[in-house]
């Protein structure tokens, strides 16, 4: 409750929250709002030469290279992209935090083993895994989410590990320790809060990259398959048209950016509210 009140006091955070809610609402209500069937390739959706139609009165945001309504596709695409951006990215950050903190806090062979495993995962060709999975499994959204989480947690773990190692040696932790505080208490109350900014940075910056990564993976055959739209694959399909039909890249790009930015604004506000170094200080 306190958190919500704080957010409402900051205009930027409020704006972010509003955007996030609107995007989620639009995704849920897509069938009601969309002017066209997102998968329908309309005869008048292409010029006689086969070029996509620019934004206008008939097609609000124009059409894509198959003559489908871009606005309708973006509404439906929001569903896939939100799931990927939030779930896949969220899991990645959670795993990364867990592994990084554990390895950084626990010294000795256990921590070492965890970090070497992280190194192995980092050096591992994720693209190849994606291609193999694509050939062996039926494509689905959850496999993409899994692959993305599998790829992205490693980087978070690395950063968190380095930061934790720095934190562990700080005076206030040493002091807590000498006072006889338990590991659980130190981790939860002192180390984790300090890592919140990092988690928010990766969690929110990661949204945009994850949404684009999903498109790469669909292209390789493991994600949502055509004709199902996602923001990422709308851009991916038409990125070479950025000169001939800029709306095909601009609109989905702007929406990805705006959504990620909105999440970031909310995240920043949350961080300021939760950050232990801020609280109780001037």
């Amino acid at each position, binding site marked *: 409750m306190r958190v919500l009140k704080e957010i409402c006091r900051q205009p930027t955070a409020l704006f972010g929250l509003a955007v996030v809610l609107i995007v989620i609402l639009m995704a849920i209500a897509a069938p009601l709002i969309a002017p066209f069937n997102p998968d329908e*390739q309309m005869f008048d959706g292409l010029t006689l*030469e086969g*070029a996509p139609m620019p934004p206008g009165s008939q097609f609000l945001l124009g059409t894509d*290279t198959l003559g489908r309504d871009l606005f309708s596709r973006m509404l439906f695409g929001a569903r896939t992209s939100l799931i990927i951006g939030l779930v896949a990215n969220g899991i990645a950050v959670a795993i990364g935090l867990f592994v990084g903190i554990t390895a950084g806090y626990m010294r000795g062979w256990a921590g070492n083993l965890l970090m070497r495993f992280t190194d192995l995962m980092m050096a591992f060709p994720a693209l190849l895994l994606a291609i193999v999975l694509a050939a062996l499994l039926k*494509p689905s959204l959850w496999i993409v989410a899994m692959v993305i989480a599998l790829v992205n947690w490693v980087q978070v773990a690395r950063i968190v590990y380095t930061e934790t190692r720095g934190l562990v040696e700080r005076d206030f932790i040493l002091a807590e320790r000498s006072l006889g505080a338990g590991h659980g208490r130190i981790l939860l109350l002192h180390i984790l809060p300090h890592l919140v900014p990092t988690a928010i940075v990766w969690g929110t910056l990661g949204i945009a990259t994850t949404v684009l990564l999903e498109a790469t993976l669909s292209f390789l055959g493991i994600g949502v398959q055509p004709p199902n739209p996602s923001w990422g694959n709308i851009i991916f399909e038409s990125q*070479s048209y950025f*000169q*001939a039909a800029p709306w095909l890249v601009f609109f989905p790009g702007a929406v990805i950016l705006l959504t990620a930015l909105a999440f970031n604004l909310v995240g920043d506000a949350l961080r300021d509210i939760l950050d232990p170094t801020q609280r109780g200080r001037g």
Partner: protein
Amino acid sequence: MFRRMLLSTTAAAFLALTPFAASAQDAPAQGGDIVVTYKDDITTLDPAIGYDWVNWSMIKSLYSRLVDYEPGTANIVPSLAESFTVAPDGLSYEFKLRKGVKFSNGREVVASDVKYSIERAVNPKTQGPGAGFFGAIAGFDDLTGGKSETLSGIETPDDGTVIFKLSRPDATFLHVLAINFASIVPKEAVEAAAGDFGKKPVGSGTFILKDWTIGQQLVFERNKDYFVKDMPHIDSFKVEVGQEPLVALLRLQKGEVDIAGDGIPPAKFLEIKNSPEGAQMIVDGEQLHTGYVTLNTKVKPFDDVKVRQAVNMAINKERITRILNGRATAATQPLPPLMPGYDKAFTGYAYDVEKAKALLAEAGYADGFETVLYATNTDPQPRIAQAIQQDLAAIGIKAEIRALAQGNVIAAGGTEGEAPMIWSGGMAWIADFPDPSNFYGPILGCAGAVQGGWNWSWYCNEDLDKRATAADAMSDPAQVAERQAVWGKIFTDIMADAPWVPVINERRVVAKSLRMGGPDNIYIDPTRVINYDAIFVKP
């Protein structure tokens, strides 16, 4: 005994010049250095191994073969051979070699080089993909089976004569000797390269590889000693690899590039076509290509001919050509229009949704069914697959698209019972040589309907197979027209069983800089992709 064919070097040279004679002001000029770009790196220039459409035309120009095609056409003319004769039974071919032709290492080309080169292409140790083409030469099975190191069917009575003995008549044999795998290489250079001949090629063709910076560029320089006067026309061509097609076109518009080898990406096509200089920059011509959908006759419900026919009527081919910005025409039969044997009168299955629905109902699928459509994942293939998907939905067939990397689609197609439908785009059949038989065996015949084969319909009609074998035995040159008619009928008869939906015949579109001259068919050569020997820079 032998019937001499009326073909000699002078005739060949004359024929080669006819396309240019049409427009006198466009006469080829000598000289000039040009730049060609490709996205993919050149894998190899070894003629026994290279088998992709990027290295295909480079290999053609690095080496010479006994016979070759007249530039821009599908007519076979003697090349390294001065003349040749065919025995009436079609089982023996005798070639007289041109004298004084030298490899770029300075040694003269002799008959034993021909024997060595073809044996090398067939030898399993070479790992060459083209071995099967030479199946008609006597002794083929012994060499591929490891029982022999030579082909007993190639004889070299003297340095200037090569005789091929065949174990069965093969009407396509001259085409076989004109494909890249039959290029003549010097044994000593192959051995000196120690397995790296593909990077250190030595031949007797129109060009010599001057420099190869791996991953960046290759420089080909004209072979000054080439045995036809004033061939080739340009002094050199530089191939820059790793070049994104979109950027290659920007560079071409600025004059940095002369030929964009990968063609014009869809995103750029209309812009260039509608630009003031577009007409001069775009070369647009037919090629030996058919894009099709295979209907797997071993997978339900495509085992029912009515279902296959219904699918043939359901696909709106005209719309697909529009998606391709008009760079293709609707196909009616497996053979492309340029191929000898193509039946102009045959109309195939017309687009008729109502009739398709009725046929499906007759087959017991009035409510449609669910299936999977495979496609490769490079633009525009997934888009075409989606257009097909929408057309199928209109008659109640719910097709899920699986867009995968090429290798995985090929693997699925060659696995029995795996892929119900495959859109061939990106892997489509472009003929190895301009003969209708090349469109049958591996992709529609029984021989290809095996594990790992390319007959993705798994269609096997033994009656048609017999007719095909009979047609290929008609090796008498006097029977050419008759043979073509027989082949043409095979392909139109196949459509009654509808193992394919022939969708489009894609035209090849090449972008060239304003200074490049020569007729269009030189840039879209039916047998070479780009004919580096015949293109020239305008004076």
